[in-house]
């Protein structure tokens, strides 16, 4: 625990130093604010436009959450089907990998064309980017159960449903959470990418992605920086929420998810 605090303190010091260097450099080299504002200008933009920043932040968070939850639900359902019906898995699994290789920026405009701008289509972009890691990891966990454990269940006349839900699913939880952790990180990226295309019907009311586009068009570079910082914070929040959930559900029995400081 002490060690971790020490590391955190170090990171903070480095961060503050960077801010100082940045501020001094901007001042000394007379960089125009529309090219690169100093950290003080960015901080001012955060304070002055906190309301709209917060609104964009929450909207993007909402889109990302919806996309992520949908990817968890659909991903787990698809993986359960894959685990139960190996023919289905062999036929369809390659397509889920294919989905991963399709650049999301290439399909985002299509989705918008079909679903129209708004939360649904942005969440859909986040959903699509999150789905492959959910399926890949969960399926891996479901099918990698030791043969003897399956035999054990069969000796007690377990039904296929019992094997699936009481053996394969809990066995796959660590993998499922790896999927969630990966997806949580990219859900925010997905939502912001979606917004770049979807935007908003009303000026100033879009999410972070839309606002970034808008701010760059207006040369509001200080606000742009504030938006980027907010996006980074949102990504962090998602990632740590995923980690926390993983720890909460698995720390009792799973080695990999126990904190170093325990025991």
């Amino acid at each position, binding site marked *: 625990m002490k060690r971790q605090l020490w590391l955190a303190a170090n990171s903070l010091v480095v961060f503050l130093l960077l801010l100082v260097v940045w501020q001094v450099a901007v001042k000394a080299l007379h960089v125009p604010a529309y090219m690169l504002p100093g950290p003080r200008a960015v901080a001012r933009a955060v304070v002055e436009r906190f309301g709209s920043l917060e609104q964009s932040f929450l909207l993007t968070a909402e889109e990302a959450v919806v996309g992520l939850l949908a990817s968890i639900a659909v991903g787990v359902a698809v993986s359960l089907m894959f685990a139960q019906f190996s023919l289905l898995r062999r036929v369809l699994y390659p397509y889920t990998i294919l989905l991963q290789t399709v650049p999301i920026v290439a399909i985002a405009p299509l989705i918008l064309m079909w679903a129209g701008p708004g939360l649904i289509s942005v969440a859909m972009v986040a959903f699509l980017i999150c789905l492959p890691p959910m399926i890949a990891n969960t399926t891996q966990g479901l099918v990698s159960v030791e043969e*003897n454990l399956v*035999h*054990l269940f069969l*000796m*007690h006349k377990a039904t296929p449903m019992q094997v699936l839900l*009481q053996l394969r699913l809990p*066995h796959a939880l660590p993998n499922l959470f790896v999927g969630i952790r990966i997806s949580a990180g990219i859900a925010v990226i997905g939502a912001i990418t979606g917004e770049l295309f979807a935007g908003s019907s009303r000026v100033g009311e879009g999410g972070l992605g839309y606002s970034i586009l808008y701010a760059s068009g207006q040369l509001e570079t200080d606000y742009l920086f504030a938006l980027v910082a907010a996006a980074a914070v949102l990504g962090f929040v998602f990632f740590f929420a995923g980690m926390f959930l993983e720890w909460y559900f698995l720390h009792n*029995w799973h080695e990999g998810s126990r904190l170093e400081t325990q025991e």
Partner: protein
Amino acid sequence: MAEVTQVERPVKLAANFPEIAIEGVTKKFREGATALENVSFGVEKGEFVSLLGPSGCGKSTLLKLVAGLSSVTEGTVTVNGMTPKNARELVSFIFQDATLLPWRTVERNVGLGLELERVARPTREETVRQMLKVVGLEKVAKRYPRQLSGGMKMRVSIARALVSRPRILLLDEPFAALDEMSRDRMNEELLRLYLEQQWTVMFVTHSVAEAVFLSTRIVILAPHPGRVAHVEEVRLPWPRTEETRMTEEFEHEVGRISRLLRGVKSGEAREVA
């Protein structure tokens, strides 16, 4: 040493009724490997039969056939006059690694079988509590498997196999991962339970001493393909205790079986050379 003609049996037998009958069993895997070829022998009710043989001679395969977890290519296996699948409720299988579910506590691991068979909760919990006492695990009931030593895990696995009150036990190298002291202790406990419960047992091991100590008969399998090389009565009086291991008879029996086993192995070496 005097030749023992009448082999003592610790458990009274029902009139020569083979509880497990293996007749002309051949097992080929889809990949073309023949794991077992024309294997025949019977295990009478109340017998403790150990399977010995070099690695890959089909011991595990044979146990799985008896448990109905795999099906024969040729021949028949009957368990208590039934097909192995239908006889499953009489049978408990104990695997080499304890095969515990890491997300379940000790008590919930032990209760797994009862849960799958939808036994009502109060009955289940009571049965589990009693069984934990039998194997000396009542203090660790709430722990998770990762918090247990290898020996304790194996005890949990045994407790789990015993709660469904089996008549037939199939054990596949259950104590292979334990140190010698724990293994000896587990052997003594297993024997005590065997005499008390009068199970019919098939036990796979690589340890001749273990096989001699526990068994009424030993079946030695030869490899490539797996077949029965010897069926030997164990000439060692009952009851058997720790002291038994120090006796000359015991050493003599271990020597005799070891020589038979070595014969099987060197036979294999000659074939290969």
